[in-house]
């Protein structure tokens, strides 16, 4: 049976980026469909009735929801090349731990950096930099989070890199001076075709954030 893969996504979503990267790592052909989150398609609402969120991966008409679950699914279905999770159970547990950490903490912290002002923003900025430093310390001197090979944690985190210039602009931050190793890691990841193709241009993200701020933030 032919593989039909559709990805319901939203171009600036750092979560959608994970799934895009995973599919490209495996060389899977897929149809990318950009959603208007303020006017969600019937297909999105039908395939993710519980959360009504992107990304949704639809493989041969069967939906898989939640980006980290999609990445693991992709790794298990297309297991013949470019393994994403390590094979050793302990290493796998560590990889899952760090992606869970990213999921639990990063989104809210980064949201405060570009989406709030005053005290709330200052607290958000501190939290955000601390998170990046924790991740940087976990990376250590390795090329990738898993060691020599690009993998699950790299995929879990790299999407946020496309938002870094937006954080720097609106949060008045210099991420490279705070976390030089993390920036070096990000640049290494960007050299992979799967990543370069899956991340939007930083400038476009800044434009997007500017629009959102106009819409939702009181100046």
């Amino acid at each position, binding site marked *: 049976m032919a593989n039909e893969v559709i990805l319901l996504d939203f171009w600036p979503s750092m979560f959608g980026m994970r799934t895009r990267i995973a599919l490209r790592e495996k060389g899977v052909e897929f149809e990318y469909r950009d959603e208007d989150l303020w006017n969600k398609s019937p297909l999105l609402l039908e395939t993710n009735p519980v959360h009504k969120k992107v990304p949704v991966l639809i493989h041969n008409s*069967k939906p898989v929801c939640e980006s980290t679950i999609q990445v*693991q699914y992709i790794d*298990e279905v297309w297991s013949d090349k470019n393994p994403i999770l390590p094979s050793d159970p*302990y290493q796998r547990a560590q990889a*899952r*731990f760090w992606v869970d950490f990213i999921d639990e903490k990063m989104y809210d912290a980064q949201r405060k950096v570009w989406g709030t002002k005053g005290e709330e923003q200052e607290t958000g900025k501190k939290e955000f930099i601390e998170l990046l430093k924790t991740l940087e310390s976990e990376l250590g001197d390795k090329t990738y989070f898993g060691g020599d090979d690009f993998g699950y944690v790299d995929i879990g985190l790299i999407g946020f890199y496309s938002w870094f210039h937006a954080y720097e602009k609106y949060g008045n931050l210099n991420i490279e001076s705070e976390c030089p190793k993390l920036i070096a890691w990000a640049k290494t990841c960007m050299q992979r075709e799967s990543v370069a193709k899956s991340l939007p241009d930083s400038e476009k993200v800044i434009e997007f954030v500017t629009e959102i701020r106009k819409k939702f933030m009181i100046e």
Partner: protein
Amino acid sequence: MASDEVKVIGAWASPFVMRPRIALNLKSVSYEFLQETFGSKSELLLKSNPVHKKIPVLIHADKPVCESNIIVEYVDETWSTSGPSMLPSNPYDRAIARFWAAYIDEKWFPSLKSILQAEGEEEKKAVLAQVEEGTALLEKAFIDCSKGKPFFNGEHVGYLDIAFGCFLGWLRVTELAAGHKVLDEAKTPSLSKWAEQFCNDPAVKPVMPDTATLAEFAKKIFAKPAA
């Protein structure tokens, strides 16, 4: 040389701690249970889980694994030849099991917890409605996942059974406190049957606290300070 010893740092009342304990029981792996004192954190806990400082932590041959659902997968993968697999073999079914486990932690349990913390009848009613909505979704998920078998995982207790079943004690306590049943034969017939079988499973029974003891404990930790 690190021994192959397994330790679990946790507390008897924590549903999250129950998860690795059930998993280890399913795999017939013996372990040392290190109970944390309520209100304080041991040196070992802080050293083994410096990022979150939370229980449970599994320590295997001196190496820590944190986050309850991650520990369960680790146990399943490490002792893969011992006892049945805790996740389905089909990648799509695995994705579905992981989806519902994530839903339970992200949405269902937080709404259950907030019933005990709700102030006033209105708030309690609203939260109860949320929990019931979620439980109805899980009733359907059970029917889809179990495919006629006794557990979410089929013939045997597995990852999703553990992820949800660990909350049954607290669910009963909450039902008592709220004077309202969430899981019962009328509303959730399949889950009701599953709950009984889950609690009677030999891997679960020894670590599931009884409702009365848990209710006493709940009174203590949710007690409002004297005015």
